């Protein structure tokens, strides 16, 4: 597998599948019915591609056929200067006509820190006893 722009989600989905199988084994279960993922909007992960690789990589496993729910978490920032806390701001670039995220604090113009929206979490799964 070469470095292809559309394959970045592949390895993390492999890890997701591996984790689920480990848990399923510990619970001695024969079938996974549902998987709940939380994916931050400030990550490189594209939910559509995650779903694509999930279907591909669960094909020969007990996870096959399970329902996959993906919750997208918004980017959340906090300003160490003025205490502002809220969604990450997006600027409309006048030249490229594209929305770009910015770490500018909307309140004081300082620089914010990202405190949310950078996760890739297996929140929970549902298994069949």
């Amino acid at each position, binding site marked *: 597998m070469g470095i292809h722009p559309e394959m970045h989600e592949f390895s993390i989905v492999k890890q997701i599948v591996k*984790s689920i199988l480990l848990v399923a084994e510990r619970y001695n279960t024969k079938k996974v019915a549902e998987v709940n993922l939380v994916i931050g909007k400030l990550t490189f992960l594209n939910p559509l591609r995650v779903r694509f690789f999930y279907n591909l990589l669960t094909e020969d496993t007990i996870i096959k056929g399970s329902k996959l729910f993906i919750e997208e978490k918004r980017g959340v920032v906090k300003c160490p200067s003025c205490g502002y806390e809220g969604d990450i701001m997006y600027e409309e670039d006048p030249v490229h006509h594209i929305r770009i995220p910015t770490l500018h604090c909307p309140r004081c113009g300082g620089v914010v820190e990202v405190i949310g929206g950078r996760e890739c979490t297996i*929140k929970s799964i549902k*298994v069949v006893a």
Partner: protein
Amino acid sequence: MSPLKEVVKAEEGEIYDIELEEDLLRANEELAAKNRELLKKHNVMAIDVMGSIGSGKTTLIEKLVRALKKKYRIAVFKGDLTTTIDAELIERHGVEAVPINTGKECHLDANLVRKALQKINLEDINLLFIENVGNLICPADFPLGSEKRIVVISVTEGPYMVVKHPFIFMNADVVVINKKDLAQAMGVDIEKLRADAKEINPNIKVAVTNGRTGEGVKEVIDALGL
């Protein structure tokens, strides 16, 4: 993984919930923190050099090594196996070069760096360049434990490189805009690229270079605080 909740005996065929709350990106962050601790313990400053394929990462590292080898004891981790400049060139400057085999992965992660750190004597060095894989997408989400992160882009990639990859600039300390000599030919406005990077990350430092001639390398050294 979080400790398993106690399992109440379920009826055959019954469906039940298992809470996991396992963040896979967090797991890498924790390993990165351990790497950082280890490097700090041995007084080694590590720099993660990210950038797209062909942007000039390797040439930049070579120039930095050449400029800094009298002042620092340097080692280089080579994570980009598609590069044509091999480890020999780095070793020509008397620095140790450790190749990291990323296998099928499109980015370095903290685990691979952890393993590579075991291959060198950290007492022998005080500056480590980690050349990441040519990729502007996922490295942002896989910190390695370095003290600083550089992103190298070049004008030959066009004017949209920064705005198309905001997250990597959010996670970098320095952006190097390379191949400045070709900006006019490409019709690329370097000042716009600079402004784009600053818009995304007001704290990012910007250096403009010609990697082949070495012009601007001093700017990079200053931006890194070396």
